[in-house]
């Protein structure tokens, strides 16, 4: 495939948004935000084949770490990003080590990740020092503080920050795809026992995927806190977050570079559209998610990207 369409898309993504209305920019921020989170999940779920139903755990760790550092200690979220990411990666490797060391796979792994996320949510709800059920509000910055506090008055700067993060995530995914790590991840996904028998250190490889995935997801959590200026245990550690995160890559195409992006391009505007069309009826947008998930799993098990690839493949005569 020639490079030109991608360059065009990239240029458009950078140049066009300033021309759009604030509401459209907000949608674009959300699209890129979920694409990023999806790409993070994809490393563990799509490439390594370990479906995590508890990525909210890392998201929440990122959000709470940077927010606490900012509101209690005055540390810039740019540093908070790193702190949150490292903390989440540490937790991810800890949880991952427990899970992988004891051979949890498939649904059992999914359940244990769900359990970990719920545990963190319970802790956050009951620990008043981190705000308890009331959460934490990030006060608006004084004039001129916007950049180091990662809080802008307009939405456009947020968009570019998120776009940058997405670019990093996609670049990382691409590098991994073409590296030994990438191939071992795929081997593990396709047949873990065979991979182990072929000499792959499955534990270490899966932990790498877990660490990277959790680090990136936490960055998303920090961004969320900065964009919405408010976090609470349900918004960050809730099951809904985990579901939103995994939905895009699954629909778009797990284990592919563009799957999360495509998934987000389709699902995020769809959800906004549904919410707008059916005003006053909460829940319809997630109903649509559920229906799409069922349909995609039944008819497009490799997601949109997979279906497109299958269509391009020459059929036998």
């Amino acid at each position, binding site marked *: 495939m020639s490079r030109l369409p991608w360059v065009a898309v990239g240029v458009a993504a950078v140049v066009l948004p300033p021309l759009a209305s604030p509401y459209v920019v907000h949608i674009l921020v959300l699209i890129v935000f979920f694409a990023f989170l999806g790409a993070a999940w994809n490393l563990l779920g799509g490439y390594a084949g370990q479906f995590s139903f508890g990525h909210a755990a890392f998201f929440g760790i990122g959000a709470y770490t940077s927010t606490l550092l900012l509101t209690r200690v005055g540390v810039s979220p740019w540093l908070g990003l790193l702190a949150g990411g490292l903390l989440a990666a540490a937790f991810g490797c800890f949880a991952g080590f427990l899970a992988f060391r004891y051979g949890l796979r498939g649904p059992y792994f999914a359940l244990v990740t769900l359990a970990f996320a719920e545990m963190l949510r319970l802790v956050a709800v*009951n620990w008043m020092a981190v705000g308890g059920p009331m959460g934490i509000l990030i006060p608006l910055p004084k004039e001129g503080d916007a950049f180091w506090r990662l809080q802008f008055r307009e939405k456009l700067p947020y968009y570019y920050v998120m776009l940058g993060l997405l670019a990093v995530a996609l670049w990382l995914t691409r590098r991994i795809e073409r590296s030994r790590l990438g191939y071992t991840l795929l081997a593990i996904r396709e047949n873990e026992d065979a991979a182990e028998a072929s000499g792959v250190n499955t534990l270490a490889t899966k932990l790498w995927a877990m660490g990277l995935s959790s680090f990136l997801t936490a960055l998303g959590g920090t961004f969320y806190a900065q964009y919405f200026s408010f976090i609470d245990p349900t918004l960050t550690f809730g099951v809904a977050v985990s579901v939103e995160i995994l939905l895009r890559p699954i629909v778009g195409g797990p284990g592919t570079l563009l799957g999360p992006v495509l998934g987000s391009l389709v699902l995020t505007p769809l959800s906004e559209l549904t919410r707008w069309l059916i005003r006053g009826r909460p829940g319809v947008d997630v*109903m649509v998610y559920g229906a799409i998930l069922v349909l995609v799993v039944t008819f497009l098990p490799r997601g949109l990207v997979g279906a497109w690839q299958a269509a391009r493949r020459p059929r036998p005569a």
Partner: protein
Amino acid sequence: MKTLLWQACVSGLLIGGVYALVALGLTLIFGVMRIINFAHGALMMLGMYATFFLYDLAGVDPYLSILLVGPAFFLVGVALERGVIEPNLGTAESNQLLLTLGVALFLENAALALFKPDYRSLRLPYATQAFLLGDAVVNVQRLIAFACSVALALALWLFLKHTDTGKAIRAAAEEHEGALLVGINVRRLYAVAFGIGSGVVAIAGSLVTPFLYVAPDVGDVFNILAFVIVVLGGMGSFVGALLGGFLVGLAESFGAALLPGSLKQLPIFVLFVLVLLFRPSGLFGRGV
């Protein structure tokens, strides 16, 4: 302190009966189909709404509504299995996981869209009394729920042990290929098992409606609890689900008595993780 612990004991056992019933449905489905049904809690929630509306709009006593709710949700379960799960049976496990998750999302949010997020509750004019068992207060509604759950569990046990369909279900759960070889229509059994599981959990919902609030998200808690119990007791094990239900009921009750806030759930999750790590086959289950 002793009173507190005794109360926790009694309350835990009472609710444990209902938990056991919920888990029985899930373990039956898993035992036969090897599917972890994420939509289990959602079905219970819908059972609760059905009971609520039957009472609110038609004056049907919740305990009588079981006779309607049970069979109705059996059919719902069969329809779900045939329509959604059946086409995907041969595929990867992860697919089936996502499938039931999708169904759960759809059902929960359909309830949210149709019934709004307001909490509803059903207050029976009778059966609000409570009596004392030693020093512990026993709420009559919870006692009825407990009794009915145990009765239904017994009925289920008899069904599995002594009827042809029940034995066929056990055969299919224990040895899938062997069952096929002796001519058991395993595909039909999938629908039956899913139907029974759904009917049972909907009845559990009916039983708790008199003393719990009804809301679209009320199934989530039971969902997680059901998973914990089934893993604890052993996926596919009847006795495991039964004992696990009581164990978890007690754990939650003691947690509520001894821990502050909503931390009562924490011991359950810790237990869950420990069981998953150290004995994923559970107390009575076969290997993972």
